[in-house]
């Protein structure tokens, strides 16, 4: 295959005020015509900097110090800026992760799409606009002509991403660099965008450099995969090969760290210990050696270079040969915990009944008038028993976080009850409520934003105890030391500030803080979404272990069905403010009753090329309707393949589909249980 893009021994450094980050070191890769190359790695591995080096768009202080980048034989390194500008957006185009910040908020999308046309193709303004309409239609923007005068903020996230792809396509680039093109999107929209990229590639014979952290995304569409770690290329081969016969221990560990939908969740998830090295002073020898399970003396002395045959290279002295680590092959500790049998007489730890929360939509600057309501949560009931992990999944805007905030009392519901051990939290008086808060704690998504940057860890951990007037100073100190040991941080870390920790360590502090008061329930809102795969599995394992040792219950909120499936005993699926299905994790995955659940399961990219390539291409179409005017009847009907007239007229009620399995659908995928007491049982759920 002819090499469209050929990178040899690329090294890129970023100069900071007092140090130099060796972001990319000695990286070689090539892309053939019409080929999709997946460039995979965790944050800070240098994959994005590699992409930006190709474009010549490095951040301030960034500089290619060595190597060559050739586009169809033309050297791009050292090319004068005026020449390079003719290549950018013309021969090589790039799309970025976040379409909400990548489009200029003060220019119409028509102007933004037409801009590169006039720049590279010349011609009249009218011709540029015509071309803009053409590409916008091509990327699936409905009624493109009417959208030209719209501004980015008027479009949904999915449409904005399509506009950004349209900008990249206007000049028929030979190479498209897609840097995390779907990371900021919901899974159903992600599936649509990935299919769009596939289709465009086939149609125009572009080559795509797909930069992502998500092994599932590359599994389905990359021809070859290159894996980066700490600025180095560690392995490169065919997609099928990398998932089944990887040679580098990092690749093996990375794949094993991803929770899988079909995984036995009583087993510990594989995790790579430690964190990636600091690239301002990378270690001698193999950069993965400090975290590698197969490390030997020579790994720490000399650095391995890529070796192997043409089709498969890896940078390792002691390559692995045992293929994908399946959980059942790993030495793992069973959690030894099964969900307690249903006991209806027992008062559940948490019971929420018909919770409703709306937020007013106002208009006008001074005289604020209510013009509508955002229906965030519309009548959700569920129970969590003590010692249980309940998972709540749904896409952004489905109301899952609002529900979580109401449960811990950070938000007051419009109507409905939150019962903690049978007592309504919102009818409690202030002092009783403060006392109750000991039992209800929250763990937040953003480990950077949720810890006070000016408090030392010791103060963060003692604060809840002081607020509750618990323990003497000495006891508080002992308690914080104990908590640090439990979450696996050294005791001297107590004297440090949050910014001195990595993301994973900060999330451990967040967990320790939630544990301080020995709560009965922790609401964890997207606890691992901000973390890299190898760090994520460490935190997931820790959460599971502590749940057992403290006999707590979790309510885990996440957009990631695989994470929830791994953690939770039971899973609730939310869509646009409604709970559409609740079931045991296994049942939900094996026999979903609601078409939305089925769609969600289908659209999650799995790190397995065999499954991904043969997947049903029926993704959930369309976008989430506005929560200000939710559809009548079943709220999912506008996107549902099975929808009929009755779905618009009548709202489906939760029906029983088996033990602990309920779904609200007029035309479910499996047959409901016939019989009595459906409505009675509903309130018991």
């Amino acid at each position, binding site marked *: 295959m002819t090499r469209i893009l050929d990178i040899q021994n690329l090294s890129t450094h970023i100069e900071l005020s007092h140090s130099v980050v060796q972001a990319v070191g000695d990286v070689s890769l090539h892309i053939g015509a019409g080929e999709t190359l997946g460039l995979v790695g965790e944050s800070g591995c240098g994959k994005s900097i590699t992409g930006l080096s190709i474009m010549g768009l490095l951040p301030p202080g960034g500089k290619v110090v060595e190597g060559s980048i050739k586009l169809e034989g033309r050297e791009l390194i050292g090319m004068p800026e005026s020449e390079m500008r003719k290549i950018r957006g013309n021969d090589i185009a790039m799309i970025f992760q976040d379409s909400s910040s990548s489009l200029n908020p003060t*220019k119409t999308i028509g102007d933004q799409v037409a801009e590169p046309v006039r720049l590279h193709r010349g011609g009249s303004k009218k011709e540029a606009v015509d071309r803009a309409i053409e590409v916008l239609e091509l990327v699936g923007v409905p009624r493109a002509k009417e959208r030209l005068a719209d*501004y980015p*903020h008027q479009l949904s996230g999915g449409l904005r991403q399509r506009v950004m792809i349209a900008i990249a396509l206007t000049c028929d680039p030979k190479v498209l660099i897609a840097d995390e093109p779907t990371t900021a999107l919901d899974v159903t929209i992600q599936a649509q965008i990935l299919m769009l990229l596939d289709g465009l590639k086939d149609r125009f014979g572009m080559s795509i450099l797909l930069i992502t952290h998500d092994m599932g995304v590359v599994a389905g569409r990359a021809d070859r995969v290159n894996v980066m770690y700490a600025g180095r290329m560690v392995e490169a081969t065919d997609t099928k090969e990398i998932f089944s016969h990887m040679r580098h221990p990092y690749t093996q560990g990375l794949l094993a760290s991803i929770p899988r939908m079909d995984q036995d969740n009583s087993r510990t998830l594989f995790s790579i210990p430690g964190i990636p090295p600091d690239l301002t002073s990378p270690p001698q020898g193999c950069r993965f050696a400090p975290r590698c399970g197969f490390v030997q003396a020579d790994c720490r002395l000399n650095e391995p270079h890529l070796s192997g045959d043409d089709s498969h290279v890896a940078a390792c002295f002691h390559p692995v040969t045992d293929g994908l680590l399946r959980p059942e092959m790993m030495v793992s500790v069973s959690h030894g915990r099964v969900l307690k049998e249903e006991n209806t007489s027992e008062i559940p730890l948490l019971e929420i009944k018909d919770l409703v929360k709306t937020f007013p939509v106002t208009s006008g600057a*001074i005289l604020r008038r209510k013009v509508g309501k955002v229906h965030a949560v519309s009548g959700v009931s569920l129970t969590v028993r003590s010692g249980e992990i309940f998972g709540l999944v749904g896409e952004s805007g489905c109301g899952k976080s609002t529900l979580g905030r109401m449960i811990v009392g950070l938000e007051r519901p419009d109507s409905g009850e939150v019962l903690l051990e049978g007592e309504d939290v919102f009818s409690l008086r202030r002092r009783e409520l403060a006392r109750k808060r000991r039992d209800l704690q929250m763990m937040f998504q953003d480990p950077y934003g949720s810890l006070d940057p000016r408090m030392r860890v010791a103060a963060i951990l003692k604060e809840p105890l002081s607020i509750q007037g618990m323990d003497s100073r000495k006891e508080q100190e002992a308690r914080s030391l104990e908590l640090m040991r439990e979450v696996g941080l050294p005791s001297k870390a107590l004297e440090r500030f949050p910014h001195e920790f990595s993301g994973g360590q900060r999330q451990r502090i967040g967990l320790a803080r939630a544990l301080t008061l020995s709560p009965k329930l922790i609401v964890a809102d997207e606890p691992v979404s901000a973390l890299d795969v190898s760090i994520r599995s460490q935190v997931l394992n820790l959460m599971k272990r502590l749940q057992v040792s403290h006999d707590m219950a979790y309510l885990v909120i996440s957009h990631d069905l695989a994470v929830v499936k791994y953690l939770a005993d039971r899973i609730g699926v939310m869509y646009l403010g409604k709970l559409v299905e609740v079931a045991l994790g296994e049942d939900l995955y094996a026999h979903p009753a609601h078409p939305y659940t089925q769609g969600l399961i289908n659209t999650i990219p799995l790190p397995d090329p065999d499954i991904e390539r043969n997947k049903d291409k029926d993704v959930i179409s369309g976008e989430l309707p506005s929560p200000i005017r939710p559809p009548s009847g079943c709220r999912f009907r506008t996107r549902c393949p099975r929808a009929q007239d009755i779905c618009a007229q009548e709202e489906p009620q939760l029906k029983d589909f088996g033990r602990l399995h309920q779904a609200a659908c007029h035309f479910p995928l499996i047959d409901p249980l016939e019989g009595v007491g459906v409505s009675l049982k509903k309130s018991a759920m």
Partner: protein
Amino acid sequence: MAGYLLRRFVTSVVVIIGISMVAFAMLHLISSSPGRAVLGLHASPKAVAAFNKANGYDDPIVIQYWHYFLQLLQGNLGYSYKLNQPVTSVLGENVLRSLYLSGVSLVLAITIAIPLGIYQAVKRNRLGDYVVTSGAFTLYSMPSFFLGLLLIQAFALSLKLFPPEASQSVSVIGVIEDPRAMFLPILNLVAIQVAGYSQYMRSSALDGLGQDYIRLARAKGLSQRAVLSGHLLRNSVLPMITLIGLSVPALLAGNLLIETLFNYPGLGLMFFNALQNEDYPILLSYTLIAGVLTVAGNFIADVAITIADPRVRLS
């Protein structure tokens, strides 16, 4: 949008009326007997009472305000007994002269500060940036009259390039026709404003340069100039608009010192003299003008933001 602007306008008028009430009430507290102030300390209490009665100053304050308000509606700001002429005619050309001085220097300051700030952001932490920042900080931290004294010493007394005094012409046309005389006061005001605005623009442009849409604009193959003028400028100027709107009344206060220093007959000098004479009707009018300028500055900034930022325009 029209509805929004109309509402915004109506609230502005309400606020101005409120300001007039508060200012009137405060003045009433300070000097409830204008007769004494006008007739002097030696006048008999009887004469003072007669004066107050004749001019309606013995009515309840609400009635007095109502009369004042009705006069305001007709554009009558009261009568200065100290200067023995209506306040409007005292203000007359003073307002226009001050407007000329502030307006010209504000426009010049913005035209210089915006490109300068962008230049600094692009040259961040390099020599050009350091030089401009040092200059800006020096000017910013310097009292305006001190800079004025330096300018007079250098350009008027030593080099004799410009006169040390601003134009004394009674009419604005006369002032406009004498740019040499206005050079130093305008330079003084411009320098001090550029020092502040350019640093603000620098940080706003730095923010902008770090945005993803600037990276995407570069990825399209646009030149640096096209990126800066086509994508950075409008977004970075947005925060400046509010700042400029808020600083309009501050200009008036700044003028007080500059006008006194260069002996320029504007509002500042008028206020300064009225303070010394305890000329309350003029002080009341000055307060009202300051209030109107504050509200108007905000209103204009809001309108400008609405035009410049589509996110505000359409939501």
